[in-house]
């Protein structure tokens, strides 16, 4: 085979890749934290029986679940600035798209987790004389959060892979850096291979952790 797997150029531009890795991690966590935080409110709204909470939350979730993330990111970069009186940089646009997407998906995890708790456990708390919030805090949340953990970890892995989409609006994460280097060094195959390896090293431990969550046999009825 005539192809030379020469990674010298990759090594030569390692400083640029390093910046890419930092940016990937930065945008990943910037989206994950508020995504999970606000997801609980949207999830609670969808769990609620009140229509004025349920319907807005449902519409929000369905819009973000049923459109491509790539389009969401591009929309916030190109279309959103037309609607608002300020400019928006690539980082903010990508963060907005990915965060709202994470809010939508994590809200579904919260909702499913809450719904997985048997009605009888709410009732047992209520029969003891607990208020709604006591039932939620003492019984339902401790049980459901345990059940949600694997799904959240999975979502985290998904989110880090989705950050690569921010490259289309020239945010300098790993993929965009690889693209930039390959236009100088003419080595796209090696650059993207290097990117894949970096992502793997970053995310594989997380995936192993998820499996741990799933297989751990916990007597506390997960």
């Amino acid at each position, binding site marked *: 085979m005539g192809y030379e797997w020469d990674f010298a150029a990759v090594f030569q531009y390692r400083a640029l890749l390093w910046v890419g890795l930092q940016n990937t991690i930065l945008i990943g966590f910037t989206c994950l934290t508020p995504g999970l935080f606000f997801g609980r409110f949207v999830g609670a709204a969808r769990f609620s029986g009140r229509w004025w909470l349920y319907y807005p939350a449902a519409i929000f979730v369905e819009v973000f679940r049923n459109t491509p993330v790539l389009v969401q990111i591009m929309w916030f970069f190109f279309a959103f600035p037309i609607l608002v009186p300020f400019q928006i940089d690539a980082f903010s646009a990508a963060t907005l798209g990915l965060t709202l997407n994470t809010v939508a998906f994590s809200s579904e995890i919260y909702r499913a987790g809450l719904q997985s708790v048997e009605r009888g456990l709410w009732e047992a708390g209520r029969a003891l004389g*607990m208020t709604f919030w006591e039932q939620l805090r003492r019984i339902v949340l401790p049980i459901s959060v345990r059940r949600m953990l694997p799904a959240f970890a999975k979502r985290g892995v998904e989110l880090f892979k989705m950050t690569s989409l921010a490259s289309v609006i020239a945010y300098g994460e790993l993929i965009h850096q690889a693209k930039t280097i390959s236009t100088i060094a003419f080595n796209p195959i090696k650059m993207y291979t290097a990117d894949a390896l970096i992502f793997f090293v970053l995310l594989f431990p997380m995936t192993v952790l998820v499996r741990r969550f799933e297989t751990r046999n916990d007597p506390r009825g997960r």
Partner: protein
Amino acid sequence: MTEVLRIEGLCKSFDALEVLRGIDLSVLKGEVVVLIGASGSGKSTMLRCVNFMELPSGGRVHFEGEPVGTLRGNDMVYDERALIRLRARVGMVFQHFNLFAHMTALENVMEGPRTVLKLDPATCRARGEKYLDKVGLGWKADAYPAMLSGGQQQRVAIARALAMAPTVMLFDEATSALDPELVGEVLETMKSLAEEGMTMLIVTHELGFVCAVADRVLFRSEGRILEQGTPADVLTHPQQPATKSILRGHGTFRPLEPNLD
């Protein structure tokens, strides 16, 4: 004897379905009252109206001499905080135990005193241990519900209700979900409670237990109380056709009296 509970003209409908059509009942302190009747005759619903897990659609409930709710126009208005205080005074045991899966047996029993009564941790622990011992499960204090048999889970559930020091205990088919060999231990626990003078309102299909423990049996059918009296009256000399039919059903197949010596 003081009257713990008085129910007057209790009605409950779910949409168009009338489950309770005017129930009157008075329960004295220390009395054990058993509700029997066909499935779907509203026995559970009646029990759940006593601690207001379901809000009655009509009628009045007096608990410990006090009327529950206030009449506003033609409607009863129930203040949720008052209902919460009432539920803390009424113990309930469910068919499916409903133990808190993430807590040990002891933590389950301590939970009411801790969260609802807001007692200090040492008192909660002492109470938890006391009532877990009472149902014979002190040695399982650190076990999670999933590690206990159905009978043990139900006894923990009884201890959990008792730890609130309730005025009256409600048993909603407490043994219906249990394997036959586990029914006995739960009924024994209930019997010893009755002997200690606990006021109890019980829904059950265990007629042998009813004979041994009940002070009064109410036979319910189609949303009403059809017949009531001592177990001897209702179970051996039923007057109403519906009561006879149910008792005939129970007696279709009788086991031989086993010689267990």
